[in-house]
């Protein structure tokens, strides 16, 4: 009987591999803060904050530490693969720590060290940048973190979510992965990033995708179908709300939000209409958060008798 060959992973190399940088962050947050390492939410969304692990988990009294990569889609930022910095699809690394630990800044700086940023070689600064998402009825105070003048992370203490006070407050870290990698790898064009240590570049993975998706976002997407999708997502959100399944409702709000962004990219929403569409999305998202909080409150109150919504 022969033993299976013992597997020993190769050491991470965040300075020369995009995926190793991500894996190092996973290692770090898993070990240092007991985070659950989640996979991306399987829906199109504009920011990691939309992930239910952030929005919905920010509600309620229960502790929650999680870290995950979230692909973000911003149709209007597409540049057909021709701009060295702008993409319509990119990655954010999200860490959510609830309640916010007292050493959260130290943890964050240590994570930068883990991926190779020496704070005596690079000028790290916490520059005031408060965050607000009217769509989610959410706001928080915090900073954008600068590394030699470049914003590499958004750091926020959530104060409200879905119109409710966060009790307790969660700390949210959002790393701009491509930017950080470009910095660490010393690369001026995002497509030149080494995706792994075996010769695959970011461009190999995503350049053609950017070209086609930019074209689709700006020129091809059938606007009638998009308007229809928006209306259907809105209706389905209401349907789910009335059926008492707010998580499903929230997904439809996320869907409506993305379809709205696509309509924006197609340039078919006038300035006046814009506010009205945003209001509709906001209404869906907030209603979903409210319904979720209302549904969960009995359970939360049972575990935390002192706690009120």
């Amino acid at each position, binding site marked *: 009987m022969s033993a299976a060959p013992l597997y020993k992973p190769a050491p991470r190399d965040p300075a020369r591999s995009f995926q190793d940088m991500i894996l190092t962050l996973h290692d770090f947050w898993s070990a240092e803060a007991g985070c659950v390492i989640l996979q991306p939410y399987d829906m199109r969304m504009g920011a990691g904050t939309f992930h239910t692990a952030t929005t919905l988990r920010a509600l309620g009294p229960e502790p929650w530490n999680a870290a995950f990569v979230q692909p973000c889609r911003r149709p209007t930022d597409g540049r057909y693969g021709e701009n060295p910095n702008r993409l319509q699809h990119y990655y954010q690394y999200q860490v959510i720590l609830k309640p916010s630990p007292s050493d959260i800044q130290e943890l964050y700086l240590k994570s930068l060290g883990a991926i190779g940023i020496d704070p005596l070689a690079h000028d790290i600064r916490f520059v005031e940048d408060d965050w607000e998402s009217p769509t989610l009825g959410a706001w928080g105070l915090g900073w954008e973190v600068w590394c*030699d003048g470049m914003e590499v992370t958004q750091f926020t203490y959530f104060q409200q979510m879905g119109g409710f006070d966060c009790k307790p407050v969660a700390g949210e870290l959002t790393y701009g992965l491509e930017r950080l990698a470009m910095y660490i790898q010393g690369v001026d064009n995002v497509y030149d990033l080494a995706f792994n240590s075996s010769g695959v570049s970011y461009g190999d993975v995503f350049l053609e995708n950017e070209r086609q998706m930019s074209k689709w976002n700006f020129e091809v997407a059938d606007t009638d179908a998009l308007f229809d999708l928006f209306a259907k997502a809105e209706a389905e959100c209401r349907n789910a709300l009335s059926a008492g399944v707010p998580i499903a409702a929230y997904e439809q709000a996320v869907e409506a939000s993305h379809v709205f962004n696509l309509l924006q990219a197609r340039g078919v929403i006038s300035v006046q209409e814009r506010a009205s569409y945003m209001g509709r999305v906001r209404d869906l998202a907030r209603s979903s958060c409210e319904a979720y909080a209302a549904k969960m409150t009995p359970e939360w109150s049972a575990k935390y008798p002192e706690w009120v919504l």
Partner: protein
Amino acid sequence: MADFLLELRCEEIPARMQPKAKEDLARLFADALAKAGLPVGEIETFATPRRLALIAKDLPLATEAVSEETKGPKVGAPPQALEGFLRKVGLTAEQLTERDGVYFAVVEKPGRETAAVLAETIPAIIRAFPWPKSMRWGAASLSTESLRWVRPLSGIIALLDGAVVPCEIDGIASGRTTMGHRFHHSGPVEIADAGSYIETLRAAHVIVHFSERCTLIRNGAAKVAAEASLTLVADEGLVIENAGLTEWPVPLLGRFDEAFLDVPPEVIQLTARVNQKYFVCQTPDGNLANAFVCTANIDAIDPAVVVDGNRKVLAARLSDARFFWEQDQKTSLADHAKKLSRITFHEKLGTVADKVERVAKLARWLCEEGIVTDSPFPPGEGLGMGGATPRPSNTHPQPLPSREGASLADLAEQAARLCKADLVTEMVGEFPELQGLMGGYYAAKEGLPQEVAEAIRDHYKPVGQGDDVPTAPVTVAVSLADKLDTVCAFFAINERPTGSKDPFALRRQSLGIMELIQKNNLRLGLHPIVSNQFIQALADSITARLFKTSEDADKALRAVFGEDYEDALDKRLFEFADFDKTEAEAQAKIAMANVPRLLDFFADRLKVQQREAGVRHDLIDAVFALGGEDDLVRLLARVHALQAFVTTEDGTNLLAGYKRAANILKKEDWRGIEGEIAQTGEEDPLAMVDDPDLAPVIAAKMADRHAAAEHLSYTPEPAEKALIDALDAAAPRAAQAVEGEKFADAMAALATLRAPIDRFFEEVTVNDADANKRAARLALLARFRDAVHRVADFNRIEG
């Protein structure tokens, strides 16, 4: 005596809040001490991104002991009185002191230890601290009652004479431990006492003095620029902001690609400043250099690495700016302007395109009416200085050769139609503060006439006091039209400034109007212009609210307003069938009621402006009280002439005479010849006036009385005669001078009344027993008063 140190350490405090936080800390601390009866000596405050601190020198170690004495009943007073008093003061009879037959309760309050006072004060200050925005954090935030601070509070140092003042707030206990620089110092730093705070932290790479960091940045940035043979473009705002972002500031110079210098220098400077907080530099010949100065918070291992990182970020920003600059130029300003019809100016006022249309009409009109001309009155030759007369209408303006046939009015209209076009450009979308400037650049690039490009660039001016006031005619026309329209339009929809609320900056805009008119000696009656602009705005407002398409609106409003829109508002507007008459009527009524309010608002702004310029407010009031004046240039000429006059001896004495005359008339309740009817016995002097049968009787009687007053029934005394003669000469002279806007002459005419009125009061008895004489003399005084009053309301002048 002891020195006290307080340090409140937290996560990074926003730079913009630090200066105010220092002041607030000093104020709260001083107030708390004063309240506790501790003398407040020298207080020094410090702020860095990670700490807010205070050192108070020479505090006593305890508050003074106080002896409080309360007076009680007399000795021998009824026992109930004494019992009541003892209950009140909580003492026994034996503890009372007796003095001069009266009981006193004396309570000795011992002094409190300063440390105890401070231990109470510190948490109170933290809880009361007025941060513009504060937050909750951590496990304690499970309740919304948890402590709030600007960012999580992590430590408190409280040392009195080197000893810890023990206190605690939300689980944070005071001590003597702090942290040094985030990266240059690891581990805690122990502070011995207040005296060593600054130097101990300096050794840990923290410069706690905000002003010292400012100096380091200001001088350091200038030095690195000079080393590169460049001049730093000074920017005190950036110095302060960078001081608020660093504990150990190190200015570093970097270079960016010279090719970016194609982009206008203002854009580069703004990109560097707003997005990156970098300074920019100039070459020796005064042009923008391809250099920036960033302020690091570390002594970097290799500064070149930090500079290079910053260079890359700036390059990305500048590529965006260049992209906008090039992209915007692919579309003409006229085409950009078309998009303004998609931008709401205000929900009740329609789109920016509507506004532009109103401004263009008004700008053209201002030129065609000769209000704005190619050669305005040179300053110093205007009114009150020797007599300029209003110019005839410039109905056929002559094009200047350089304008290729375009008249001033054409250029003003063109500039007005394009002046807001840059609002829809990418560049202004990114940097709203570049509005106007970018339009000017794009106009020049397009080859539009220089006057038009300049007018687009400068039409927002003057922005606030001290800003340049435009004098180029095209710019003046557009700037004035834009501001007049904005103010009128908001008043027309009843959006008036109230108290401290002025969301549309109408006060500032009005001041701009005043300054444009004064600087350029513009002669215009504001009332008709304001009324007209109200109606235009109202029409757009009703259009925006009541009509689906602009064609409908056009048809409807043409029918409604016609040519004679002023009347139309009252009559035809409400006869039109296709829209909600009640709503339109209500809106129109509210709007037009605001016309006089706006004129009063202008008057108030002008008063404020003149007062700030040092003109006596009573003189301003004296002229404003006359009312009916909407020509600011004429109005100010009169104020200035009055100011010159009342400071002369003649002026002072005439004022005294005027006040005496006015007082007598008031005392005698003189209501004019007609008023004397009262003495016929009717209780209401004018009770019969409206009686149709009596009317001819009264008229005849009045005619008699007026005749009697003009042709005295007695021989006047010499002084009386002298005053009559002087008035006969001076009153028409003054009136004529006022008519001709020669206010100094009007004052001179009044001055001739001074000797006669003095003599009249000296020699003539007004209240003569003869009713005819009394009436005639009172009438004479009234004539004198009125003659003076036509020049200014002397009643309002102090002195």
